[in-house]
């Protein structure tokens, strides 16, 4: 092996090493929490660092403050609900928008829309959060949520108390807006390339554009699934926009769509400074376990999405 090849091979291993180090270090840090919390980590929703001013006690070989209990059920629920609702709202819109763009609109509008999609995908998440705080939450609180309760109150989760506007609904809507450009740019690209391949034939045979669109949709199953999973991966791991709009619930499970919630990424961010004052290190360890869990869920979703898309994702994600 020549010198340049050796040097370049070694440097290229760095990303591989980083993955191993990130995962290895987090698992190493999470080990005391795995031993102390056990399966209760996933089945309990109580997150309590215990009496940190009291003398630490030793449980199964690890120091911990008396009364400490760490369960992430609330955060896990929040992550899954907000991401699922976001995807339910944004994916059909993405499919519809992509097909309409590919079939009904002309070249010039398409060019404008697709560069606008790129810009919107680039808006920092803290800015989506700001908009959630100053516009979405007050609007939901004063107008939308009372109406929803009056109209849809007979459905479970749509009735009951309305809180401050921040909560499941607000976070899900912000997430839906944030992932819309991602799934749309992937699905739209395949819609454009497949249109020339097959849909033009359908049109030539006398199909209406809508009928051709239905054909197009059935041809894009793979891209829709892949684009959906990639945007799900993004939604699951999204931090700032959710942190700012979720209401920061702790130790209380949501009762309806208007309830405050917390997600894994948001809780990790909000709770990390509580680890600074914990003398036992168990808070930090539990947060590391939370981080590992979030990492695994979110990476799994994105990687399955990439596998489904194949090499298509390479371009789509960068746009």
């Amino acid at each position, binding site marked *: 092996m*020549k010198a*340049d*090849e050796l040097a*370049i*091979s070694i*440097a*290229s291993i*760095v*990303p*591989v090493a*980083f993955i191993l*180090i*990130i995962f290895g*270090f987090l698992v190493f*840090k999470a080990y005391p929490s795995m031993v102390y919390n056990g399966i209760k980590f996933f089945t309990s929703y109580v997150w309590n660092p215990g009496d940190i001013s009291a003398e630490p006690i030793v449980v199964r070989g690890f120091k911990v403050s008396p009364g400490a209990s760490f369960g992430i059920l609330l955060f896990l629920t929040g992550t899954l609900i907000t991401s699922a609702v976001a995807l339910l709202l944004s994916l059909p819109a993405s499919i*519809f*928008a992509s097909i*309409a*763009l590919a079939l*009904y*609109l002309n070249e010039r509008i398409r060019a404008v*829309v697709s560069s*606008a999609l790129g810009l919107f995908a*680039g*808006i*920092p*998440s*803290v*800015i*989506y*959060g*700001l*908009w959630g*705080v*100053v*516009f979405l939450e007050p609007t939901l609180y004063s107008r939308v949520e009372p109406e929803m309760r009056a109209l849809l109150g007979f459905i479970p989760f749509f009735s009951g108390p309305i809180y401050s506007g921040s909560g499941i609904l607000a976070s899900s809507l912000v997430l839906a*807006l944030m992932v*819309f450009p991602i799934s749309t740019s992937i699905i739209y690209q395949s819609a454009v390339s497949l249109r020339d391949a097959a849909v033009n034939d359908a049109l030539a045979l006398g199909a*209406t*554009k*809508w009928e051709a669109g239905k054909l197009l949709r059935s041809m894009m199953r793979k891209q829709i699934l892949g684009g959906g999973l990639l945007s799900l991966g993004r939604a699951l*791991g999204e*931090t*700032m926009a959710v942190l*700012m709009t979720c209401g920061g619930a702790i130790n209380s499970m949501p009762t309806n769509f208007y309830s405050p919630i917390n997600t894994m*990424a948001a809780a*990790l*961010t909000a709770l*990390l400074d509580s680890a600074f004052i914990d003398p036992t290190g168990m808070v930090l360890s539990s947060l590391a376990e939370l*981080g590992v869990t*979030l*990492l695994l869920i*979110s*990476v799994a*979703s*994105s*990687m399955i999405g990439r596998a489904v898309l194949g090499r298509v994702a*390479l371009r789509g*994600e*960068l746009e």
Partner: protein
Amino acid sequence: MKERSMTLRLAEDRLARAVGIGVISVLFSALLLIVYYVTSGALSHFSWDMLTTFGNTTSGGILNAIIGTWLLIGISTATSFPLGLVTAIYLSEYRGRLSGLIRLSIDVLASVPSMVLGLFGYLVYVIYLGMGFSLLAGGLTLSLMMVPYVARSSEIAFLNVPKELREAAYALGATKWQYVSRVLLRAAWPLVASGVVLSSSIAAGETAQLLYTAGWNTGLPSALTRSQVPYLTYVVWSGINQPSAYANGLAYVSAEVLIVTVFSLMVLSKVLERRGIAWKRS
């Protein structure tokens, strides 16, 4: 297929067109509304002092945060660019047994949630390596997120270089390294640069990774390590929840500066991309 009347089919088609255009318009107006909200908020609170003085998120200005953001972009770009570029060179030219593994790890790295990278940066850079909340800790944490973007976009840039150039170089007796350094990089640089600029625009808007790695400073950091750094996204996050109207104003103005920064970087990236593609055509 069942026979249906032409009128019905055409009516259905027209309805679909209307709904489709409706969906696109509603979503784009929502997204435009975000930019509009930030801009109008920023304009109503704006004063020049905000851009020209240092401050602490509730009083003064955001000049320190603007400079801090650019310092962080500088560190993260300077560290992720060589790494991403070399990885892309390996993937497109050297292609060994490790290609699959490297590509996989780049995809995995790109899907790690930003706060998990933030936690890692805090545990390893800040605590374990003793950097403290600092430029280096924050910049290196951002760099973890940028490497996959730089690697992917550079690989695409290399794919765009006509293969005749490679054949010509090797026919003239060039070694692999001579081809890479004198032909490939020269031909691909606008597209490589375009990808680097795009990934630095993403870094500019990051918050979660920096909260526990960069910290905050009412002035500027005095050293690479153990000296905290101010940055724009922090002002947005902390200022918008403050009771004082002035703090809210600083948050709006920071958000606007961020939008302008990110959009300008994205436009610069597009310009470089055009240049790269135009080169290929000529």
